[in-house]
């Protein structure tokens, strides 16, 4: 451990890092303002283009990069903002600042219902669905007579590009600042977790739905301001330029070139690529899009992380760890917390009766009864395909039972979403570990802790405590892939415990662990059970859990075939037959 401590690289404190980044942003914005104020119209126009690019790229990155929902139709909101602002100025005689603000508000509120529909989609479906949305809006704009239909309309514009350039620089810098701040908030952490693994995020108590829609609206808002500023500067608006595919291509390229999912990627990529685009446009207007398209291909193939991936992962321009590093451990570690209200309820905390789940003709779980009391450790064992993991999906709300029901703390869990259940105290791990690969060890645990604790200090203390107990504190800044397999399992258990569950569902959590690691888990589980947490542990073989379990339930072909104390179950002929086949049923089954 001391070697690890010595080898640990020195980090800037996250405050220092944040201050340095803010200073850089300030310098960039100030130079933009200086150039725009020179009185040279061409230079001011260039600054306007660069700043608008940074703004659009930053907005795209919130939904496409941070949340992982790549869109080929973010220009929809650019166009909506542009049209709403133009209508405000032309037909409601609003002054520009108010029109722009109202347009942004209108487009952002329109993003709520649109997000509710579009975010049901994933991956390519979302990307192309957004593309379709942009085309629908463009067709709608063609039919909008008050803005000149397909021919477009002139709109009273700013006098010269200097003022729009200055305003856009300030707004773009503010947008980048907002994203940098967002990445240090609960919402930012949740969005990055959703990008990595939405199922695991849901299990850690994240309202995936709400977080995605919030990100969608923020991204839409940035694009809409951009649209309004664009019209204000150019004084002209038509459907094919407001919903132009070129804007979409350039935005995607800028984010990709700079570094998708980072704060500085869209800023750097936006500046570089808009300058490049301008140069190309001036010298080779016909070939510009070919070059930009080829560049997109090249980066997607050769440098998927963009320019930011060339910088050190923990350099000062990187994302500082959220609310880290964990403080030094407090003396006399706190006991593990369990929700007392639930732990005090008499009787079993989790009950299921006649639970069944069919997939087509196969009954994966077939009439299973199970109950577990606070503080009890129940082991569920069974051979491969016995229905153990399906049972867990039913218990944690990730699957809906075909028959029977599950009750948690006296309430039926039918129709309760998994994240709600996780927040109320049913935590789970997954058979193949599902950690968030781009979040640090610390953030993996913190994500679950913020689902439990409203106050930052409490969440930080709880996460620190858990890392300490699992012996993972030294590794807080590493990525999960950097850990050996057994320690990854420990981390997943720590994440589940950070929800301070009253029921903990462990799905082969100790597979692949070394002896000392298993001992460590046992110690932590004993402490949790002593505080009243009910533990249901699936294991393929018994020794990993036998020392803790008072009761063992054996599943085969979806049914309970035996139940009782570990020693008696192991000698049950039915159980031996299930594991070894009927021919072996007479032999002693001591190795299970």
């Amino acid at each position, binding site marked *: 451990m001391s070697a690890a401590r010595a080898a640990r690289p020195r980090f800037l404190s996250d405050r220092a890092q944040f201050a340095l980044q803010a200073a850089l942003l300030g310098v960039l914005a100030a130079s933009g303002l200086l150039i725009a104020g020179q009185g040279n119209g061409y230079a001011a126009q260039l600054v306007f283009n660069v700043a608008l690019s940074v703004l659009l790229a930053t907005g795209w990155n919130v939904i496409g990069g941070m949340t992982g929902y*790549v869109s*080929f139709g973010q220009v929809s909101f650019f166009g909506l903002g542009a049209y709403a602002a133009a209508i405000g100025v032309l037909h409601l005689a609003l002054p520009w600042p108010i029109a722009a603000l109202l347009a942004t508000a209108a487009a952002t509120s329109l993003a709520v219902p649109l997000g509710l*529909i*579009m975010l*049901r*989609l994933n*991956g*390519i*479906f979302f*990307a*192309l*669905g957004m*593309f*379709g*949305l942009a*085309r*629908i809006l463009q*067709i*709608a704009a*063609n*039919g909008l007579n008050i803005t000149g239909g397909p021919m477009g309309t002139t709109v009273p514009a700013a006098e010269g590009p200097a003022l729009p350039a200055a305003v856009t620089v300030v707004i773009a810098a503010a947008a980048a600042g907002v994203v940098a701040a967002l990445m240090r908030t609960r919402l930012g952490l949740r969005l990055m977790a959703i990008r990595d693994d939405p199922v695991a995020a849901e299990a850690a108590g994240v309202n995936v739905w709400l977080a995605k829609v919030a990100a969608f609206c923020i991204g839409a808002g940035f694009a809409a301001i951009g649209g309004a500023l664009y019209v204000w500067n150019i004084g002209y608006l038509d459907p094919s330029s407001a919903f132009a*595919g070129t804007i979409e*291509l350039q935005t*995607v*390229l800028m984010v*990709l070139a700079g570094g998708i999912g980072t704060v500085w990627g869209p800023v750097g990529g936006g500046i570089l690529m808009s300058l490049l685009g301008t140069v190309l446009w001036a010298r080779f207007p*016909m*070939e510009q*899009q*070919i070059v*930009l*398209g*080829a*560049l*997109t*291909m*090249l*980066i*997607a*193939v*050769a440098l*998927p992380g963009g320019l930011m991936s060339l910088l050190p992962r923990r350099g000062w321009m990187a994302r500082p760890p959220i609310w880290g590093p964990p403080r030094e451990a407090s003396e006399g570690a706190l006991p593990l917390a369990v929700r007392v209200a639930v732990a005090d309820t008499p009787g079993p905390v989790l009950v299921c009766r006649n639970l069944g789940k069919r997939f087509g003709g196969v009954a994966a779980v077939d009439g299973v009864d199970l109950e577990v009391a606070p503080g009890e450790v129940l082991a569920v064992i069974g051979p491969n395909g016995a229905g153990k993991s399906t049972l867990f999906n039913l218990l944690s709300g990730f699957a809906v039972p075909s028959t029977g029901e599950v009750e948690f703390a006296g309430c039926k869990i039918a129709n309760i979403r998994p994240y709600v259940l996780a927040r109320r105290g049913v935590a789970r791990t997954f058979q193949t570990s599902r950690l968030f690969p781009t979040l640090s060890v610390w953030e993996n645990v913190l994500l679950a802790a913020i689902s439990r604790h409203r106050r930052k200090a409490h969440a930080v203390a709880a996460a620190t405590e858990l890392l300490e107990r699992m012996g993972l504190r030294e590794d807080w800044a590493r990525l999960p892939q950097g850990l050996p397999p057994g320690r990854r399992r420990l981390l997943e258990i720590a994440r589940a415990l950070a929800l301070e569950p009253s029921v903990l569902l462990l799905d082969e959590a100790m597979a692949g662990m070394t002896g000392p690691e298993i001992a460590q888990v046992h110690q932590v589980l004993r402490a949790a059970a002593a505080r009243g947490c009910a533990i249901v542990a699936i294991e393929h073989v018994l020794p990993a859990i036998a020392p803790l379990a008072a009761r063992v339930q054996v599943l085969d072909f979806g049914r309970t075939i035996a139940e009782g104390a570990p020693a008696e179950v192991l000698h049950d002929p039915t159980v031996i037959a299930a594991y070894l086949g009927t021919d072996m049923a007479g032999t002693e089954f001591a190795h299970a």
Partner: protein
Amino acid sequence: MATFATLVVLGLLWGGVYLLMAEGLNLIYGVMKVVNLAHGDFIVLGGLLALTLFGRYGLSPVVAFPLAAALLFVIGAAVQGGVLERIPLAKPEGELRTLLATFGLSYVVANTSFLIWGSQFQSIPFLQSAFAVGPIAVPQGLLACSLLAAALAVAVHAWLRHTAVGRAVRATAQSALGAAACGLNVRRLRIVTFALGAAMAGGAGALVIALVPFQTSSGGDLTVQAFTLIALGGLGSYLGAWLAAELLGITEVMAQYYLGSDAAAAVIYLVFIAVLVFRPQGLLGRTMRI
């Protein structure tokens, strides 16, 4: 009533054409689980190549159309072998990177076409007349395209079912890892598949440009149209794609007639989003995959 019957017949015939335009995308998606966003641009390129071969060099359509498809085969092989093979699909971000790469490719293809052919709508005047079946007027070109599309669909299906390479392609579609473990050259199979998909796009373009004029920027719309179709059919499913094609054909023709062309263009996107949201597994669900 006669009008309605005509619209239905036209819709069914157009369905065949839509199927042809979507088949290459379906094949590529079925095997590689990636969507080629340049598919529509390949269709346009195939059409414009056929236009040049037919119009400028005076080749007979019987020669010009297959030649356009063959050129697209070569381009497709070069794209997959030279670019997309460098993105490891096994990694989680592989799908996204492929998507972004083909997004870039679509701009390269569309704008290169623009440099060569300009931006105006172009068409091949070929089989322009119509003949009457009772009260229904059937355009010859549309009938020919529809029949050819059906023939091509059957041919590709037979190729996948009954040839060694076709079976290997299907094996790769079901499990690339398993196919590789059985000693199949998965890389070469993917290149062949992508090239074939591009060739089908090219062939479709060559036929369709005789029916509707193309513009170099039509590609994006065609990609979405083709994707809508295969999504509605259940990605990678052949029977489903055919059903979806007929449905879309009738919808499109009806919308054109009753609502006008602007609205018809929006209808396809509305269908697209509705399909994705309400029936993401397609009409036939997970059955009948390749």
